[in-house]
């Protein structure tokens, strides 16, 4: 290597260090967090702190373990992100300073988590061993351990400082009242259906709905009429159609009522189901490009954005919630894993894993307005989630 090449590398290094310091110093300034968020870099176990007012990356935080199926909830002050890693790691990240505030390896293998209504407890659902563990949101000290004989999925918070989750292997829904954190009160509902794989709670905290992998249908628990127990809804959707292979499990998290209807991914059918929220019945189904994974509503409910399972994961489709027609199909690139809307939805961020890019797209024009570089990006989580039930 000649002298000029060495000098060039040296200067590049100096620039890199200078820029890093600029990023760090930004965190020291007085600022709000309502337009911040994090992007999970799944392969490298790192997290990007991003700002959606300026479409920029502020800093990268490393050392979070295996994030291959990581999800995030926020403290109610919008400052701390709780990151649930696949390897059982629970990490509390201070997005203002870009530091890890606390971290614990709480099980061998976990799938997701939730924060309680009062913000004092963080719960994690686990695959291996099963069960749910509840931690003090400040210190991450263990508060309650709720063992199960099954993998636990679809863990959400519900009003009344409750957590609700489903048992994948046993087909049950458990409601855990954490009013007294030392003595959780558990209500169990059995025989809810085969293999609940994920669940959601509606934004008002009333309906907990578990998607079933083992049969066409969903189990719905009305928390305002909990004595009635879970009811089956959408029973036998897709009946008579051949079930197609599912190369990635759909998620129910982005499920939102839009224009009086809910739009949900079918399982084993390449379609989005339209559900009337009054009658809880299927009133339509929209054929899609592939197996839907996330079906996410814009904050205004006007459009619903859908991504797809492998091998169709290079595409996004946008559904008009009034006409229930696909109005736009775009191909950002292979591995579109997740989308997140800005707080009021003028833009959507999408992670394009195989391009190592985050695309920022204008939701009115569908134009890509910015590309950010990221290392195998997956989940994108903005702080507006902090104030929403179930997120």
């Amino acid at each position, binding site marked *: 290597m000649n002298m000029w090449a060495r000098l060039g590398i040296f200067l590049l290094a100096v620039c890199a260090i200078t820029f890093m310091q600029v990023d760090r110093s930004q965190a020291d300034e007085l600022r709000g967090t309502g337009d911040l968020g994090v992007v999970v870099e799944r*392969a490298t176990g790192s997290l990007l702190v991003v700002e959606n007012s300026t479409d920029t990356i502020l800093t990268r935080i490393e050392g979070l373990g*295996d994030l291959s199926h990581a999800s995030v909830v926020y403290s109610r002050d919008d400052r701390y992100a709780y990151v649930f890693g*696949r390897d059982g790691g629970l990490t509390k990240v201070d997005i203002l300073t870009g530091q890890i505030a606390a971290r614990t390896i709480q099980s*061998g*293998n976990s799938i997701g988590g939730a924060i309680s209504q009062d913000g004092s407890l963080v719960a994690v659902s686990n*695959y291996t061993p099963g069960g749910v563990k509840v931690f003090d949101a400040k210190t991450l000290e263990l508060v309650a351990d709720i063992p199960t004989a099954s993998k636990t999925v679809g863990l959400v918070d519900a009003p009344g400082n409750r957590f609700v989750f489903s048992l994948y292997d046993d087909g049950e829904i458990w409601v855990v009242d954490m009013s007294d954190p030392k003595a959780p009160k558990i209500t169990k509902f059995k025989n809810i259906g085969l293999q609940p794989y994920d669940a959601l709670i509606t934004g008002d905290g009333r309906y907990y709905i578990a998607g079933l*992998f083992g049969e066409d249908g969903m189990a719905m628990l009305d928390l305002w009429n909990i004595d009635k127990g879970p009811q089956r809804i959408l029973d036998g959707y897709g009946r008579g159609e051949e079930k197609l*292979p599912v190369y990635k499990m759909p998620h129910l998290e982005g499920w939102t009522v839009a224009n009086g209807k809910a739009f949900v991914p079918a399982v084993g059918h390449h379609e989005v189901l339209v559900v009337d929220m009054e009658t809880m019945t299927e009133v339509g189904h929209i054929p899609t490009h592939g197996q839907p994974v996330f079906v996410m509503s814009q904050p205004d409910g006007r459009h619903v954005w859908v991504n797809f399972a492998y091998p169709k994961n290079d595409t996004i489709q946008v559904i008009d919630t009034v006409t229930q027609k696909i109005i736009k199909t775009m191909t950002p690139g292979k591995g579109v894993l997740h989308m997140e809307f800005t707080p009021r939805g003028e833009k959507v961020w999408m992670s394009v894993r*195989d391009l190592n890019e985050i695309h920022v797209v204008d939701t009115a024009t569908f134009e890509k307005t910015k590309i950010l570089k990221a290392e195998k990006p997956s989940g994108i989580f903005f702080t507006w989630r902090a104030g929403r039930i179930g997120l």
Partner: protein
Amino acid sequence: MLKAVLLVAPLALVASFSAASVKGGGVEDDTLGIDGARRAELLYVMEQDCGSCHGLTLRGGLGPSLHPELLADRNAAELAETILDGVPGTPMPPWRPLLEPKEALWMAKILKSGVLAK
């Protein structure tokens, strides 16, 4: 440049896998006649897409761990059949629509070799 990096990492794994088998006295062609670009693609799919259920480190998730010690009692041909036909009654889908049988066999051998397990 980025593409180059993407390809190099999996190829390095392919190389180490082949070397390991040669040391073990294997005489058959490890590539099973699958070209390098496709092998790199398959490895990427295994890590990223099989990884959505089995974990990026193959330690398991909704699907079981695929670490080699847990696969010891199953030969590569059986594992390849599972990949191609899936496991009815579970979320493991049949990959036959997307893979040649020899590609599934090659993937099964990669799994048994443990080069992807972390």
